[in-house]
């Protein structure tokens, strides 16, 4: 059996989900590809060890987020932040398009760790504990990063303020 076959199986099952996360982190299709490609090479390098652990995708996701934060620091230093516009869609309601564009622009202005927290907490649905573990920080840091990120998103995208307000009310109700 080709030693790469089990990696191929892993890719068939998890590649697109990792790509979606990479895209949300970077906001740019080409950077997302580069980011994921770079991480996958690391994953493949350690495949003989990872193939036997319960969740190689968890390792891949962690590597993806940490690589993204590292890249963002480098990119900021060299002023190479992407300016690519989102692709046009054939079918999209006006409201959803406005929301998507506003959110996309606001996310692009978040510091890398805040953006990562938003993606992990609200897209990946990770708990604060799991997010903290993945980012190698405390739960308190995750809470404050999430709070700051949401506040900043609200300020950066005032047209989304009612949505954020509803969200906060819902959170209050759950407490």
């Amino acid at each position, binding site marked *: 059996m*080709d*030693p*790469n076959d089990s*990696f*191929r199986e892993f*890719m*068939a099952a998890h*590649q*697109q989900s990792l*790509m*979606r*996360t*990479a*895209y*949300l982190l970077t906001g740019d*299709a*080409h950077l*997302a*590809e*580069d*980011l*994921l*490609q*770079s*991480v*996958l*090479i*690391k994953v*493949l*390098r350690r495949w*003989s060890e990872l193939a036997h652990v319960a969740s190689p995708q968890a390792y891949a996701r962690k590597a993806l987020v940490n*690589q993204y934060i*590292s*890249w963002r620091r*480098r*990119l900021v230093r060299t002023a*190479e932040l992407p300016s690519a516009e*989102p*692709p046009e*869609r054939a079918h999209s309601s006006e409201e*959803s398009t406005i*929301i*998507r564009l506003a*959110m*996309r622009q606001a996310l692009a202005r978040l510091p890398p760790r805040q953006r990562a927290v*938003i*993606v992990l907490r*609200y*897209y990946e*649905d990770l708990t604060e504990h799991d997010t903290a573990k993945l980012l190698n920080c405390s739960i308190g840091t995750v809470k404050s990063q999430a709070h700051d990120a949401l506040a900043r998103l609200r300020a950066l995208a005032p047209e989304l303020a009612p*949505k954020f307000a*509803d*969200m906060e009310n*819902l959170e209050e109700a759950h407490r």
Partner: protein
Amino acid sequence: MTWLRAVLDDMADDAPQVDLTERTIRARERRRRVAAPVVATASVVAVALAATAAVRLLPAEPDAAARPGTVTDLPARGVGPLSHAYATFCRPEDGEAPSGCVNGGWRVVTRDGKTYRVGQALRGGSSGLRTSPLAISRDGRKVAYYDAKAGTFAVRDLTSGAVLLAPTKVPRQWLGSIAQLLLSDDGRFVAFSKAPALKDPAMLFDMRERMVRFLPNDWDPIGLSPDGDTITLAKYAPKTRLQTISHLWRTSTAGNARTVDVTGHYQVGGLGPDGRTVVAVESVKVTGSGCVRSGGALVHLDRETGKVLRRVPVRGLSMTANFVHLRSWAGPQEITALATPFTCNESDDAPASSFDPPYAPFTAYAVNVETGKARKLATYTAQGFFELVLPGFPGTL
């Protein structure tokens, strides 16, 4: 959180639909080979090679890092024939980048030792994975590259400065991660292919008549007939295969294709000057590791049947101490073999992700395909086999 989750989910629908599986496997193998000299640099073999390069060969192969301030942009015209080209990535994990390094940029070096930046060529990505292909004609007088401003491929005559652009635009994302170019001897035809095989096609351009033919993707072009009417291609995953497509320009759409499987795994060199001979080096798995090394012989393959015709043991070039890639033919009976010291060290086999491969010596030999006798031609410094381009066939992976 339903609202925010839904918006993020909606945004994620714009994520690229790309299969990175085979690209990752190939890039990993490529990095493994690139990284081999990292460990070998400390060995006696590599020290000897480096000394050879410094003492005997560097006058013909100037090391940009050692000559700061000598690199300028490629002049509009009047550039002499090229010895080679190399890509520069500026954060090597070991040693220093060349002075004036442009990340992902290409430099060309003339036979008389002048080095120029090719500012028109698309720069490779910061990760070092999205490469920008470049090819040099066999006589060293023309260079093909992806012109970032024009958004398509260009062929530049270095003497006159005349530039021919491909008749169609080629979006950057079509370049994939591992792009290949093959330039015909007269500079009229440019074949382009890339990995992975997506929906967008590989192409053959007639730069003079401004026509284009689609080619199968994820096949590496290894030879083109002088009239551009027949192309030979090779493929390595999941097995070695050869394909010949003829009558490319005689029909309105496509030519006749013939594909053969080769038993075993081989890396092929450029198609022979007779338009038929295919010579290869076997890829041999190192027992007990994930490493692949070169076989000890030149293997003659039948382009029509895929069968191994004969094996010629190589002499004068250690095929076990080096990893060897074949390039263009150096004469009617000699093929160029590019060698770099081979090591197999799984724990050290990939550069840290935020750094680029180190600059390492690559030595070119002319190997007689009938006798196997090798003679040394020159030593170059580059960050990898595919970051170093010699005139003619630029190599495949």
